[in-house]
């Protein structure tokens, strides 16, 4: 029941209602009888039409009429009889629509009858009906859908229908349905590059002007703003694919070192032996990060020439938490050969891409800029180096006092060294002249309006500024700092006050800007990158640790700027999600303590981090929420993305029920953590601790306590 007041019926109304009920019951019984006995006489048909007039929702009655039409027109050739039968059906539908203009059954019946092509369609009548209905309710989406159907049936041109949306919008700007239809028609024409629609820039300029009229007439009406957002997306979203980041840094000079006692390999930049990467396996990652999610990265689209194995044997993996095979970030692993001599053996690794097509983004753009870069790796078997293999078992504590010192960060120069797409970016910017001008015009326009404290004005302004900065830097790093970030942060602060209902949306948007700001700020990074080099007893000393704690971050972004990070401290933020961290393939230690992570399924990206050993998720909200908002964003049987039969058999024993802990089991079973802290979460109790130690045979420390001797 919609819109009916909650009042008891007056006695006289009750009597009318009872009489109506009796009539409806009678008609319904007759209809079902006719239906089941296949009685299609004109008397029986009259019953069904009376019934549908009273209640157009009785779908079986519509089915009955379809059967009757098929039955009664079977072998009829007289066009007059056919015409009058069709006429009857159209009339019943019109009666039903008068009762309920949103009756699915009635609308479909009309479509069904006309689609059969029994008699010529009287298009004037159809458009007249539509005019009446859209006049009564300009937002009736059944009417709009039917209009698209009739227009197609009659071969009405898209240009003509665009004119119709213009008329409807001019009658009332607040007609989201008309704006929607306009966006559908226009994107079709732009896609086809139809006559008069071959200049996207020209068309979009006209559309900006058109929508401005609506926005200025009533800035609080949502309809035009969504259309404006679509125009902005058309203007600012990148068409071209670029490689925006990679690891190792192009041009770098590295030393790969091992000795017999060490369970793995160390990698040093030649320039600075006090920094090192540590790899636990006899492999070595190569990471590529694109400005859009792409598919098709493989040994045929990317060639790696090195002595670390044949290119065709390399397997590229998309770093994605879904089964889509599309990702911004891709990784492959080179095999490290056994090193016997202690002398340095230099090898070069050459990477080239763009020589063949095949790397494609989800919107269909192909990677097409030929690109080559290389780095040098020297192999060294250093048996002289002291290395205590046992010390890995030490408890690692995120304590910056005493044990660490600020790092010189050659890694940060990865930004500067990443000149890989400079030429293509410069070319891209030239093509984007119109886009940049348009964005600037829009920015100026809304700045004038921003005094009025309308949330849509402020939000649009913030989005325009972000889009402008992004376009200037083009995903690559030509601009050191995004020039407008302070202004955007201020706009979001104002929005939080202006529209507290959507506070958390603005906070999430603000977080993206904050991430962009800190990851581009060399000074900030210098101050927040550490080495635990005084921690000589730990295997983690000399790892690069980035401290991004206490910044009010609620989500992660710009992971492409953090590929070098091995230890990441994100504690004391407001993180609910860690999506994006999957790109940090070198990550060994991660501190997520004191955030708002509310389920193990939200930690899905960790499954892609092979090198992760130390994880702190203490003092989050895991287990505190009965509704899991990432339940369908992880691989699981619920979404048919993971078969758990083996895990069920393995972990369903004694008092542990797989169904109670599937999220934790599916997360941890393939991680090779040596240290885990889950204290301060609702889920943490003694029994859960036992489950964790069972699942993680590599674990040495759980919640700060030694688990194995």
């Amino acid at each position: 029941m919609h819109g009916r007041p909650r009042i008891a019926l007056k006695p006289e109304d009750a009597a009318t209602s009872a009489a109506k009920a009796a009539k409806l019951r009678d008609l319904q019984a007759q209809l079902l009888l006719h239906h089941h006995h296949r009685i299609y006489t004109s008397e029986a048909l009259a019953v069904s039409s009376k019934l549908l007039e009273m209640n157009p929702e009785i779908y079986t009655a519509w089915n009955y009429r379809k059967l009757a039409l098929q039955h009664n027109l079977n072998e009829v050739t007289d066009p007059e009889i056919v015409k009058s039968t069709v006429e009857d059906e159209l009339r019943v539908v019109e009666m039903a629509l008068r009762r309920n203009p949103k009756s699915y059954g009635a609308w479909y019946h009309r479509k069904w009858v006309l689609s059969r092509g029994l008699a010529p369609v009287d298009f004037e009548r159809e458009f007249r009906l539509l005019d009446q209905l859209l006049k009564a309710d300009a937002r009736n989406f059944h009417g709009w859908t039917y209009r698209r159907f009739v227009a197609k049936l009659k071969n009405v041109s898209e240009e003509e229908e665009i004119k119709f949306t213009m008329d409807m919008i001019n009658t009332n700007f607040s007609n989201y349905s008309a704006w929607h239809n306009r966006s559908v028609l226009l994107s079709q024409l732009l896609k086809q590059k139809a006559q008069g629609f071959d200049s996207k820039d020209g068309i979009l300029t006209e559309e900006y002007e058109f929508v401005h009229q609506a926005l200025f007439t009533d800035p609080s009406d949502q309809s035009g703003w969504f259309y404006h957002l679509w125009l902005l997306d058309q203007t600012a979203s990148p068409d071209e694919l670029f490689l925006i980041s990679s690891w190792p840094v192009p041009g770098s000079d590295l030393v790969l070192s091992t000795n017999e006692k060490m369970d793995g390999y160390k990698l040093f930049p030649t320039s600075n032996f006090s920094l090192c990467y540590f790899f636990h396996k006899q492999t070595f990652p190569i990471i590529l990060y694109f400005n859009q999610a792409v598919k098709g990265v493989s040994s045929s689209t990317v060639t790696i020439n090195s002595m670390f194995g044949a290119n065709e044997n390399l397997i590229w993996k998309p770093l994605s938490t879904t089964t889509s095979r599309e990702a911004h970030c891709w990784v492959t692993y080179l095999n490290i050969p056994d090193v016997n001599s202690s002398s340095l053996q230099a090898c070069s690794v050459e990477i080239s891409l763009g020589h063949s097509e095949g790397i494609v983004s989800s919107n269909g753009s192909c990677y097409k800029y030929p690109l080559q870069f290389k780095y040098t790796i020297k192999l060294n078997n250093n048996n002289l180096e002291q290395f205590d293999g046992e010390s890995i078992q030490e408890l690692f504590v995120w304590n910056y006092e005493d044990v660490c010192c600020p790092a010189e960060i050659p890694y940060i120069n990865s930004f500067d060294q990443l000149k890989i797409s400079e030429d293509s970016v410069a070319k891209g910017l030239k093509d984007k002249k119109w886009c940049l001008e348009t964005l600037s015009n829009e920015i100026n326009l809304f700045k004038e309006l921003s005094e009025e404290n309308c949330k849509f004005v402020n939000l649009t302004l913030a989005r325009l500024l972000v889009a402008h900065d992004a376009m200037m830097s083009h995903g690559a790093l030509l601009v050191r700092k995004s020039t407008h970030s302070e202004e955007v942060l201020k706009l979001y602060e104002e929005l939080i006050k202006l529209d507290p209902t959507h506070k958390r949306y603005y906070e999430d948007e603000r977080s993206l800007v904050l991430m962009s700001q800190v990851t581009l700020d060399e000074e900030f990074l210098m101050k927040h990158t550490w080495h635990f080099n005084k921690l000589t007893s730990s295997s983690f000393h000399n790892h690069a640790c980035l401290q991004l704690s206490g910044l009010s971050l609620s989500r992660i972004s710009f992971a492409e700027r953090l590929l070098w990070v091995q230890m990441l401290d994100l504690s004391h933020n407001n993180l609910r999600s860690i999506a994006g961290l999957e790109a940090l393939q070198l990550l060994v230690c991660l501190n997520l303590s004191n955030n708002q992570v509310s389920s193990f399924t939200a930690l899905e990206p960790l499954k892609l981090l092979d090198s992760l050993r130390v994880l702190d998720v203490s003092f989050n909200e895991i287990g505190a929420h009965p509704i899991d908002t990432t339940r369908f964003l992880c691989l699981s049987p619920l979404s048919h993305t993971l078969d758990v039969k083996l895990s069920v058999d393995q972990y369903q024993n004694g008092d542990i029920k797989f169904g109670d802990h599937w999220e934790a089991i599916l997360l941890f079973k393939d991680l090779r953590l040596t240290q885990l802290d889950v204290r301060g979460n609702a889920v943490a109790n003694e029994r859960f601790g036992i489950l964790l130690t069972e699942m993680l045979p590599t674990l040495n420390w759980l919640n700060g306590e030694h688990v194995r001797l």
Partner: protein
Amino acid sequence: MEDLVAEKHVKYILSVEKKKDDFESLVLEHLRMNGAYWGLTTLDLLHKLGAVDPDEVISWMMECYHQDCRGFGGNIGHDPHLLYTLSAVQVLALFDRLDVLDIEKVSDYVAGLQNGDGSFSGDIWGETDTRFSYCAICCLSILHRLDKIDVEKAVNYIVSCKNLDGGFGSIPGGESHAGQIFCCVGALAITGSLHHVDRDLLGWWLCERQCKDGGLNGRPEKLTDVCYSWWVLSSLIMIDRVHWIDKDKLTRFILNCQDRENGGISDRPDNAVDVFHTYFGVAGLSLMEYPGLKSLDPAYALPVDVVNRIFFGKQRAPSLLAS
């Protein structure tokens, strides 16, 4: 804040089951199968499913079952349709009695409604709508028979209904609508295909459904209605953006739509109650973690414990999962 008058709602739902003869009940008679699902799921969320006799419900349901085609009708004597087949399967799942079905045959009926372009018809008459894609996919997944359809095509069809505002329509080109968005996002969730959704764009569109009165509408510039508490909230949860709305305000809006005397929840404050809005109100509260309610799965529209039993329970059907 006003409280949830849970006991009154239970009483109201049980009374609706018995009331069949007034005009308002008759108008809805053809979709009594949906009514059974709404009413019984609400009872389960309120921990009162035990108040009904499963055998009685199931024997009525089986009278709505069509032996010839293996689908369910909305009531005895009414034609079979996907909308009612899903409700029947959901109710049987609630009672843990899916064994009464000939699962192969029911799933053949559902799978047989898939069209060449991946879409689904609601019944043999061919009306196509993404609502039916959801019905089919949800139903087959509960029955562990998703392998009977071309999932990739089904997903591609849904994606072809995606709009430039991030939402989804009933057919390609159709306007975004919260109910339709639930169906499409739900079907994509169940098939592990949420990567086709622009979560930030759709999330913003959905969170902007919250109006000044705290309630949610289904499309821009429309009136708020309790039923969107379900359609919008469940969609926001599936894409992990539910924190973008103000839960306290929405909770208050729903509680204000209760008939505090006779039970039931209406579309807006002081309107007439019905079982449809009672379900969507209680479901919305459950999704916002209102104390004392069972939690609801946002994609399968069944209590989480029921869904976990289906997918993690001991008597799991032999694995037919995609690799």
